[in-house]
């Protein structure tokens, strides 16, 4: 589906005419990311991050396939095979550093993408399905990243595998046998390493499939925009190409500069030195933490230190999973008819002074040692986190008096919605 004024694909020569009749792939691309997809004209740079996330998925798949050509998933040689990649394989160091930092950057852009969605309430009707698919993609990313971190078979790999599979042990009755089944043993060993490698290779393609559904679902209502006002007429939109290919291209250039600065100059900045020590099942490192992108959820896991009806361990696991699962319910928790945080004064205050500092604090606390005052702070911020989504957001949406919305996107951009003025400027120049 698209807006009625979307440009129709016109095959230019014999080859594209033939393809258009037999397999209209060029038409699909044209309507997805070409001139055939009309996009609101007022998108800010926050709307770059979906494309950036897609880009980093591709980077991860390409470098990952390359690494899998040289890596050996066997506890006897896995650690050495990573050193082999670093020292012997042509450009192996570049492939591995790009892959390791690519994971971090994938999460950076996805976090910004998610917070864009939260601030502009992109999850609201008619875009609930896009949001649900997005949360699913995020969960798949977490599973993939975790299993990837196990593969080098360093100390952090091993103890990460031990701790994360230990989460399943908290489940009543079936927990301990479930953990043993997941690992294929009583502790992480060859069986676990092999299945993690297999799944780490598989899941990115599942993610790619979900991304296709995510984009498909997006193209039914079309992209949201910073005003939250739906597209009303042709003057509200611009063709994706060349306008947003150019804007996304610029954003991609900036992202690549920062990314390459890490790959070439700070390649181990986001990792843990302990993972350059080979896995030792008899000795846990003094301070084990997950990769930085799991910190907020790790802080929530560790915040539960007391038994209350259920054991503390189970509370922690439930809370950690719930902290992401709660996102699935956002479209129905936030009842406000207004989308954009720009026109929601109360929502905006709680977003910038409640949710954002809470997430920042949880990020910090997840990497801090498990001792006071960090434990208590984790408990306070975990409490606010759930309060925000489950209580504050529903209350705000019923008591808040939103600011007046612009009549249309065009009016928000130009201050008036005169078609005559737009006649000249809204045409895409090729």
């Amino acid at each position: 589906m698209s807006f009625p004024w979307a440009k129709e694909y016109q095959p230019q020569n014999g080859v594209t005419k033939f393809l258009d009749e037999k397999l209209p792939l060029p038409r699909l691309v044209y309507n997805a990311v070409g001139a055939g997809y009309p996009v609101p004209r007022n998108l800010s740079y926050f709307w770059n991050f979906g494309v950036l996330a897609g880009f980093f998925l591709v980077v991860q798949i390409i470098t990952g396939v390359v690494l899998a050509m040289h890596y050996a998933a066997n506890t006897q040689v896995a650690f050495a095979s990573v050193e082999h990649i670093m020292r012997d394989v042509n450009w192996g160091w570049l492939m591995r550093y790009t892959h390791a930092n690519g994971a971090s950057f994938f999460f950076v852009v996805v976090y910004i993408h998610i917070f864009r969605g939260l601030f502009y309430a992109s999850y609201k009707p008619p875009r609930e399905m896009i949001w649900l698919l997005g949360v699913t993609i995020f969960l798949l990313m977490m599973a993939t990243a975790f299993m990837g971190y196990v593969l080098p078979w360093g100390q952090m790999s091993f103890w990460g595998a031990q701790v994360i599979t230990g989460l399943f042990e908290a489940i009543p009755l079936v927990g301990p046998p479930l953990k043993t089944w997941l690992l294929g043993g009583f502790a992480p060993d060859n069986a676990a390493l092999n299945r993690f490698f297999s799944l780490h290779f598989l899941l990115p393609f599942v993610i790619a499939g979900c991304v296709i559904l995510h984009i498909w679902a997006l193209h039914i209502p079309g992209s949201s925009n910073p005003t939250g006002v739906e597209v009303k007429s042709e003057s509200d939109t611009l063709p994706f190409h060349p306008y947003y290919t150019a804007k996304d291209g610029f954003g991609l250039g900036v992202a690549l500069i920062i990314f390459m600065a890490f790959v070439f100059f700070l390649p181990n900045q986001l990792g843990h030195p302990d993972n350059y020590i080979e896995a030792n099942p008899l000795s846990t490192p003094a301070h084990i933490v997950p990769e930085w992108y799991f910190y907020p959820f790790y802080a929530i896991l560790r915040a539960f230190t007391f038994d209350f009806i259920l054991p503390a361990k189970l509370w922690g696991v439930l809370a950690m999973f719930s902290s992401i699962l709660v996102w699935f319910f956002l479209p129905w928790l936030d009842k406000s008819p207004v989308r954009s945080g720009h026109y929601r004064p109360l929502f905006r205050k709680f977003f910038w002074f409640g949710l954002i500092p809470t997430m920042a604090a949880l990020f910090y606390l997840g990497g801090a040692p498990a001792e006071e005052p960090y434990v208590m702070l984790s408990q306070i911020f975990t409490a606010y986190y759930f309060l925000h989504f489950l209580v504050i957001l529903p209350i705000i949406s019923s008591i808040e008096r939103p600011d007046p919305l612009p009549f249309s996107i065009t009016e928000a951009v130009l201050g008036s919605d005169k078609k005559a003025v737009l006649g000249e400027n809204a045409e895409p120049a090729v």
Partner: protein
Amino acid sequence: MASTTGNAEATPDVTGAVEGDDGVRRRDFINIAAVSAAGVGGLAVVYPLVSQMAPSADVLAESTTELDITTLEAGQSIKAVFRKQPVFVRRLTQAEIDAANAVDVSSLRDPATLDEITQPGHGDVLVVMGVCTHLGCVPLGAQEGENKGEFGGYFCPCHGSHYDTAARIRKGPAPTNLAVPEYQFTSDTTIVIG
């Protein structure tokens, strides 16, 4: 960016759609420059992605083999390994040398004399790769009791290539003689291959 203030007369050419004094549109220049930069960047990415599949440093480090042939007597062969591939080293008998020299070189598919295949002063030591030049099987004949083919050298059982006592192709589908690796005698009885 299609930014506009809505005041057409007072707006300078921010879109670059207007031709400048030099007859070049600013937009065309930016477009060509950006696409060129992306193209160069793309090639810079492709190079390491292709190169990573070439032999790695540890594989290249295995590329010499030293052999001691003190105990090798006339009519005997040894199989060695060079770059994970078999090498046949054979000390030829006088009968084998005579047989090899009796052939009319111009009648061969891959003309070469025994002297060209062996090294000066070591005309009785035949060093060839044990890899059939047809499709890469290991020919028979290096070991006692194996089929040496119709010409008394090597015989590849996969597709029936017959090599003579100088490892030259005489019959069958193989296009060239068994390859001679780069090697040298570091003493009368020591060969370094590679």
